[in-house]
């Protein structure tokens, strides 16, 4: 049923993304693609990969925004993937029941065996998290690496979504946002983590941590003007031994 299930455990697995730290290296997006092209939703299409119209399905994409103007402006790298909403419209509109939200942990998934590829879920998602796979005729989306987080064949430290484990800046965190004392929940509380497009009332589980404010005196913290190194005259003569060598060689 594509009705939203009663969450039985209170568990809300999701990501917390720190926009203060993200450096926009796209490693999370690339490693996501690599893992998932042989994971739960494999394969992910890659059309014309070396040509003019390279295009394919990615579950995670990194946008870069410029915020503000002039000296106060900042560049913010913004990774975007499925937010595993508590009220996922993509699940409600699905006519077949292929899209569903798991009662036990809140992960939103697609059952590719019954998806008819009508694309309505992608219209219903305000975040652009769902991408259509034209090769297999079904919709695909982030699985929160369901094939890693419960995978007992992996070391315990690796049982996190691959975007989290690969992030070199530690800007991505995975955990239970339904548990108020979990590390991710505390992070959200401390840093005033927020929802994307809250006015649409989809109640995303994933939270974003805002960039920290610039320090008040950041203008005076700019590098001091250094003494120009180019002031020395070009044919300044060397002294001592080098002067003698110079003379010998220029003879």
């Amino acid at each position, binding site marked *: *049923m*594509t*009705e939203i299930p009663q969450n039985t455990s209170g568990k809300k697995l999701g990501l917390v993304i720190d*926009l203060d730290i993200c450096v926009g290296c*796209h490693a999370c997006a690339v490693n996501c693609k690599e893992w998932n092209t042989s994971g739960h939703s494999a394969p992910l299409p890659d059309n014309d990969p070396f040509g*003019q*119209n*390279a*295009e394919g*399905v*990615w579950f995670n*994409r*990194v*946008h*870069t*925004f*410029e*915020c*503000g*103007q002039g000296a*106060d*402006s*900042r560049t*913010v790298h*913004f990774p*975007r993937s499925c937010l595993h909403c508590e009220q996922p*419209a993509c699940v409600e*509109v*699905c*006519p*077949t029941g*292929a899209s569903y939200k798991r009662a036990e942990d809140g992960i939103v998934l697609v059952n590719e065996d*019954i*998806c*008819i*590829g*009508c*694309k*309505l879920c*992608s*219209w*219903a*998602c*305000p975040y*652009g998290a*769902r*991408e*259509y796979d*034209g090769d*297999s*005729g079904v919709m695909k989306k982030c699985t929160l690496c369901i094939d890693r987080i419960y995978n007992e064949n992996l070391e315990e430290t690796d049982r996190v979504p691959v975007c989290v484990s690969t992030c070199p800046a530690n800007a991505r965190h995975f955990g239970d946002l339904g548990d108020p004392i979990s590390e991710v929940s505390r992070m959200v509380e401390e840093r005033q983590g927020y*929802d*994307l*497009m*809250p*006015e*649409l009332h989809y109640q995303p589980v994933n939270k*974003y941590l*805002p*960039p920290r404010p610039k320090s008040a005196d950041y203008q005076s913290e700019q590098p001091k003007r250094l003494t120009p190194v180019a002031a020395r005259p070009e044919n300044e003569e060397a002294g001592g031994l080098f002067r003698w060598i110079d003379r010998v060689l220029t003879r």
Partner: protein
Amino acid sequence: MHPAYSVIFFTTFSGAGYGLLFLMGLFAAAQWIDPVRWFGFTGFFFAFSMIVSGLIASTYHLGHPERAWRALSQWRSSWLSREGILAVTGFVPFSFFAMGWVIFENHGGAWRLMAVLTILFAVLTVYATSMIYATLRTVRAWFNRHTVRVYLAFSLWTGSVWFNLLAHLFDLHTPGIGMIVVITGILALWLKRKYWMFLDTSPTWVPPEHATGLGDLGSVKLLDAPNTQENYVQQEMGFNIARKHAEKLRRWAFFTYFLIPWSLALITFESDPWIKIPGAILAVIMVMVGTMIERWLFFAEAKHTTMLYYGASDS
């Protein structure tokens, strides 16, 4: 939003088919028309053809058309599923109603109940179609009270232009039918104009600052997209028609869906068969073309919130 031809064709033609069935049901239930066999046969033939071809067209944009039957399962939450169920089950009363009219030349007694059910299913199916769009909060141009009204009004208007043609073909035209054509045309015109006024004056739905949550840092604009070539989301959600083209197409739509067919329908009320039958046929052609332009604009003018992540300045 990308205007998919299969969906434009489906909503226009099935809308006209249901509109025609609605009027046949209404005229039968109210006993305003005699159950003339060939009138009924022709009417049901066109209505069923339009509905069935529309439904078939709607499966063309599916990735797995062979699994389309699965779409009937989620009626509890999905308007698309509800529409599918109504479209399929509607054929039960439609078939009995057609049987009474065409085979037994009778729409009284129990057949009359079928006429009432036909009215009900025709309205509900078009309503369900429009609710698929009207419940998508991601698209301001659809998520409003105008969407359902316009879909119902266009279904009734296109249906009544078809009904007008049938009445002329079988010499069963009455001033009542003329009245319905006049009124439904004006209704479609009025509701669509109200919709366009709403669209032109509605404030920004979700500002780009809310999409990223970075409004505290100042205005937000895209510096670098995640991908160099357009991805699926941009192709599907990013279609956006230039305002000046939209204005021109709105004018064309006005002439084709309303002014020409409405005027032609007026002319055909009192004239000899050599004028009224070609006039009524031309009115049908024009109203269908005009409604397809209107439907194309319904998609092409609609902006999706997702595009805020790809550089759109409003939604």
